[in-house]
């Protein structure tokens, strides 16, 4: 039993001294780079430039920050710069010059932030320097409100919206730079541009956090680089296995007739409807109750797998570049509580909310009421911060539908954030934090079922689909328990 529990599908290569020694030598480095290139080629078409950037960084570790900046801008250029989701409602003929001015808008956004950063750091006693993140967010929201009142057909609107879209993409990276402004590990602002949308993977959520954190986790010796790269290989190949499992499950749950009749020779499928389909079908009315449950659970499982793979691949690239970051998703099914699952499921998004919303709230409000202090700060992060992040990310909708209309379309997601924040807050206050204090039955049966069950049910409301009301979602929730209205 002990031997079975210690079994690893992918061995812990980074803990074997001989392997670590080999990984520091030229043949070892070449082998690791080749293994990574082979693995990453299954995940991205840009595997060749990515591998080239990694090779240069592997052999010139002393130039890593500069190389990272070059690699990041190189990968942005190769990908035609970030997708800024130009609003569809702007006439198409206006979109043609976008390709040419996108780098200029990007440069303008970076200069805008550099000026803001200089003002904040050089006038530390100024009112705007006291709360620079809040002020930047408020300023951005005001710009969005102003832009929604401009006629969309004008060329100026196109430039303004592109500028706002670029700022929106970089907003949380900028915030990390502001958070890091006091940290002694923070590199020069010019080099920090290489940490915004780093070449190992793109997300509006900074992976992994800001420049100070990256400097902290950077490999500082050949041995540390070897360990980081071995962990990268392990994580990448683990992600590929999970990806395979996800595709097999997709085939079994949904079939993949639109792509090919079978996957890996599996032509059998259960024909489970998607969660979107059951929610839209009169809030699940036209499907039997067990099919509603299957749709919900299948969606949760596939999403969990997809999400794990996505984060693992980005972190694997980061580790390969010499930054030994923690995993984004770490054994969520072993969570000891609702708060623990939130920490394990999407670590870097949770960190973003903690750094930008939780700490500022925690350090200011309800200091004399410890429980209320913790609860309120958690609600500010998982509820308000979560909603604000997703609202600002949906800039295409804001441009197309307007500021207030888009905000209204987030009412179901606002409810989701409220429940999530409340549940995590209560979990932090009252749930056991470690599984070692639990009985076997509670640890292995009750806790996973209730924690995963909670998030599975809550995923019903994880939606910004404005075609469905909050009532529709509640009707679907009730139908799961065979409660019918009308």
């Amino acid at each position: 039993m002990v031997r079975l529990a210690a079994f690893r599908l992918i061995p812990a290569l980074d803990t074997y001294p001989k392997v670590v020694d080999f990984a520091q030598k030229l043949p070892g480095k070449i082998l690791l780079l080749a293994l990574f290139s082979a693995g990453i080629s299954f995940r991205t078409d840009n595997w060749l430039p990515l591998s080239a950037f990694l090779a240069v960084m592997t052999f010139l570790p002393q130039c890593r920050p500069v190389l990272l900046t070059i690699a990041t801008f190189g990968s942005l250029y190769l990908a035609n710069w970030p997708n800024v989701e130009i609003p569809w409602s702007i006439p198409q003929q206006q979109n043609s010059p976008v390709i040419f001015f996108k780098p200029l808008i990007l440069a303008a956004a970076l200069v805008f932030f550099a000026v803001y950063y200089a003002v904040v750091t050089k006038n530390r006693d100024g009112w705007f320097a006291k709360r620079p993140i809040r002020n930047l967010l408020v300023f951005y929201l005001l710009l969005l409100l102003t832009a929604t009142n401009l006629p969309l057909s004008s060329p100026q609107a196109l430039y303004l919206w592109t500028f706002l879209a670029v700022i929106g993409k970089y907003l949380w990276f900028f915030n990390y730079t502001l958070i890091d402004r006091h940290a002694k590990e923070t590199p020069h602002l010019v080099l920090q541009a290489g940490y915004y949308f780093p070449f190992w993977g793109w997300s509006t959520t900074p992976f992994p956090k800001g420049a100070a954190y990256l400097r902290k986790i950077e490999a500082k010796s050949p041995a540390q680089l070897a360990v980081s790269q071995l962990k990268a290989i392990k994580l990448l190949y683990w992600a590929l296995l999970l990806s395979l499992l996800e595709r097999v499950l997709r085939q079994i749950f949904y079939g993949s007739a639109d792509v090919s009749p079978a996957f890996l020779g599996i032509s059998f499928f259960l024909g489970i409807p998607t969660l979107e389909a059951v929610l839209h079908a009169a809030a699940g009315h036209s499907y039997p109750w067990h099919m509603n449950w299957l749709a919900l659970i299948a969606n949760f499982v596939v999403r969990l797998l997809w999400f794990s793979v996505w984060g693992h691949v980005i972190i694997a690239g980061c580790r390969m570049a010499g930054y030994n970051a923690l995993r984004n998703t770490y054994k969520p099914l072993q969570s000891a509580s609702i708060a623990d699952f939130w920490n394990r499921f999407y670590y870097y998004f949770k960190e973003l909310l903690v750094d930008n919303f939780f700490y500022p709230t925690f350090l200011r409000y309800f200091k004399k009421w410890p429980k209320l202090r913790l609860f309120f700060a958690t609600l500010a992060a998982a509820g308000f911060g979560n909603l604000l992040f997703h609202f600002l990310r949906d800039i295409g909708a804001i441009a197309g539908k307007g500021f207030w209309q888009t905000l209204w379309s987030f009412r179901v997601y606002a409810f989701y954030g409220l429940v999530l924040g409340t549940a995590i807050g209560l979990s932090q206050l009252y749930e056991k934090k470690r599984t070692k204090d639990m009985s076997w039955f509670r640890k292995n049966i009750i806790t996973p079922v209730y924690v995963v069950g909670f998030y599975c049910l809550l995923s019903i409301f994880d939606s910004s689909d404005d075609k469905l009301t909050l009532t529709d979602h509640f009707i679907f929730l009730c139908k799961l328990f065979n409660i019918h209205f009308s």
Partner: protein
Amino acid sequence: MDNRIKIKIFLQELLADYDAGPDFGDDDSLVTSGLLDSQAVLRMVVFLEEEYGLDLAERGFDQNDFDSLTNIMRLISP
């Protein structure tokens, strides 16, 4: 009791709650390494507020300040 010893004892108690051993060096990473999480950092904040009157609301918060015993010592006696 010496401040360094007092904080070290507090950190050892914190590590015990996270199933980690009590031995660590003054410069060892406790948070970035994954030994402690953000909830543990909060307990450190509250401890330092109560024991040393630390107020981070104006100063700004940096999790790295809590990453090692040396960093924490720098925080309470800048």
